[in-house]
């Protein structure tokens, strides 16, 4: 009985090895570390990806939440994890560009993070409570110019995407607003809905789901978004501001070159799943695939774009 069990195990192992040789990566479940708690926008996106990963690769995508310090806890531990291709981590830009400058010491440098795939983009929106007297961006800018530093604007954390958008917009519009950081997107949105603050920088996904209680004034994307076609972009209103969050898959630095490519290709294939894309676009996310090694140029470009803003935020603190 015992030897038969052993034989069976040996047979399964060799079969796994065979099929592994045929299919390559992955041969077993892949861990995807989410640097935020369960239920947030990033975590949800990852959980919607789970069934798509299973059907594309035949293996599970295992989500591990490792929240803390706006993502810094997980990102600072990335390179101490195993570089075997089975440990991957969700990464967000511009967060990993801003944090090392703004929150010193944040435990990591932007260059420490090896990104192998950019897979999604979520635009930011400028929003006001439904009852607000501000109907347009122009109203808001006029009020901010009339009383500098008096308009309060909510966002998530210090040195996150919302903070960057606030800094960018203030500069482009030539105004000074009071940024009020909240611990997460939900609490900032609740403060906006209750008119505790005048306005907020938040994500398109939030603007769409909360539209009973808040009004979006403009979106900070290059072009208008399909889900809210009447919403103007800041660019067309004359403010040269584009901002948002880019989601990426990162691996530990020790991951060998060929595995980095395989991880990148595998996730790129997973996000082609039709149901995944349908769900994501319903939420307001743009699915995109910038694969390894081309993605390095994208990261460099974003770094040079956001680093001056990071220094500006740091100087104002």
């Amino acid at each position, binding site marked *: 009985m015992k030897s038969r069990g052993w034989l069976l195990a040996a047979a399964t192992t060799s079969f796994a090895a065979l099929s592994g040789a045929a299919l390559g990566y992955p041969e077993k479940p892949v861990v995807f570390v989410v640097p935020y708690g369960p239920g947030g926008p990033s975590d949800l996106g990852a959980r919607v990806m789970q069934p798509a990963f299973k059907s594309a690769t035949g293996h599970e995508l295992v989500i591990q939440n490792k929240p803390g*310090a706006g993502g810094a806890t997980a990102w600072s531990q990335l390179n101490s994890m195993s570089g075997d291709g089975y440990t991957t981590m969700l990464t967000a830009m511009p967060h990993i560009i801003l944090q090392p400058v703004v929150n010193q010491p944040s435990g990591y440098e932007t260059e420490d993070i090896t990104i192998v795939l950019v897979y999604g983009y979520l635009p930011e929106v400028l929003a006001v409570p439904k009852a607000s007297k501000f109907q347009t961006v122009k109203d808001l800018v006029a009020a901010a110019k009339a009383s500098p530093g008096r308009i309060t604007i909510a966002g998530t954390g210090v040195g996150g995407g919302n903070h960057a958008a606030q800094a960018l917009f203030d500069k482009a519009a030539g105004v000074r607003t009071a940024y009020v950081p909240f611990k997460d997107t939900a609490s900032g949105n609740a403060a906006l809905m209750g008119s505790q603050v005048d306005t907020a920088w938040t994500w398109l996904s939030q603007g769409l789901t909360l539209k009973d209680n808040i009004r979006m004034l403009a979106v900070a994307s290059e072009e208008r978004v399909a889900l809210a076609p009447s919403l103007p972009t800041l660019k067309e209103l004359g403010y040269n501001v584009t901002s948002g969050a880019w989601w990426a898959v990162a691996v530990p630095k020790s991951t060998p070159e060929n595995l980095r490519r395989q991880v990148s290709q595998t996730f790129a294939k997973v996000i082609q799943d039709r149901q995944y894309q349908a769900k994501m676009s319903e939420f307001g996310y743009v699915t995109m695939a910038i694969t390894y090694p081309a993605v390095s140029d994208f990261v460099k470009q974003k770094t040079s774009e956001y680093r001056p803003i990071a220094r500006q935020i740091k100087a104002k603190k």
Partner: protein
Amino acid sequence: MELVGYAAAAATPYNLLLALAGVTAGVVLGALPGISSTFAVAVLLPTTFTMEPVSALIFLGAVYTGSTYGGAYSAILVNTPGTPQNIATTFDGYPMARRGDGNLAITLACLASVVGGLVGAVALWAVAPPLARVALAFGPIEYFWLAVLGLTMIASLSEGNLLKGGISGCLGLALSLVGVSVVSGDTRFAFDSPALVGGINLVPAVIGLLCIPVLIDLVAVPQPHLKREGSVGGYRLREALRICRKSWGTLTRGSLIGTGIGVLPAAGGSIASLVAYSETRRASSRPEAFGTGEPEGVLSSESANNATVGGGLIPTFVLGIPGTPADAVILGALLIHGVRTGPSLFTERAPLIYTFIFGLLIATLLMLPVGLLMGRYAYGAIVSISKTFLVPLVAFFTIIGSYAIHNDVNDVVVMLVLGVFGWLIARVGIPAAPMVLGLLLGPIAEQGFGQGVIIGTATGSVWAQFFGRPIALAIIALIVVTLFAPYVLRRYTRRLAA
């Protein structure tokens, strides 16, 4: 007539089975330290992708309510809250178990959880939109004062020595400062260690502070873990029902506080149960019995935490803002199923919402048989197991639990260090409970204060922000009453006696 239809839709065999499975899974997961309700609901979320939206909601709601009750098992039997919502349950639940009343405490927790769960669910049904508006009236200032009100509970958790309790509370506040500050972005007291950048996490700290001293004492003394001789066996349901009938005021208070605090997006079941516990103690005619195994302590905490399930769903459904961390996952499930939240949910999607509420009521009622049965086995196992097995087993779970919450070995280190520290300060009579309170409320107070100052500076007057808002003033009045009423009353009665 419509209601009958919703009730029938909720009671299909499939939905009943899901409610039963959800409650059972929830109780088991909740009882394991480190597996929070949020974690339990998140792990089971992908299994609901293929279900009908209403079935998915019923299942997740059942898991949530089940885990909130299940956490009471470990709180009562080994002084380790299974979920953060059960922290206050340890204060009297564990002393009850020590003296041989563990089965009674578990039965009381079950009854209180069912009552609280029902009250929360009925509130969700009847008064969701107006309560959600109240949640929006709570700004940073109100959260600051609410946290200060919570901190006044240090006095009631100090077991007679206010100075030592105060020291413990301040230690907790100091620990809550570690890591990146939300409002300023500065990294504090991290000593260049990446492990501390994210701060001290609540769950490993609570496991360490409350459970490790128990484990050390178990090894240090020869007596069995829980007293057995002379104690009554069975469920002791009749006895528990008698206590509940006598303490209906406590159950009502706990359920209402739980519902109300559940509605507030920045406070959850852990704060609700602590506030309910302290209010019950304050209203009691024998406050000195609390902390020594007072059944009302268990009733207040357990009714409040299960009431936050329904209460927390109110802002989740009406506003799209999660009331508690686990509600964030449930909100995600709604989004994934293409259900848009908002006040219109209760009219346009009435069949979905009301069928779900019936499902939640059914799941809550199912918790009675499921909870009593599983509680009996949990108690039986812990009572009969030899200490040589119990200690390593519980020690194993403290480590697994601390690791599981964020998949981080550093959390295990934090748990062990704080555990030994908690044992050491107990030697000199400093209780650990106020420290937990400081750690829990510190961030809420600090963020509310920082945001309040920024908003106050921008609008022209910081003083008007902190002392000029009606809800804030009401909370300040409560703080004054809580702090000074006992002294005033004592003087008054002394004068009467003289």
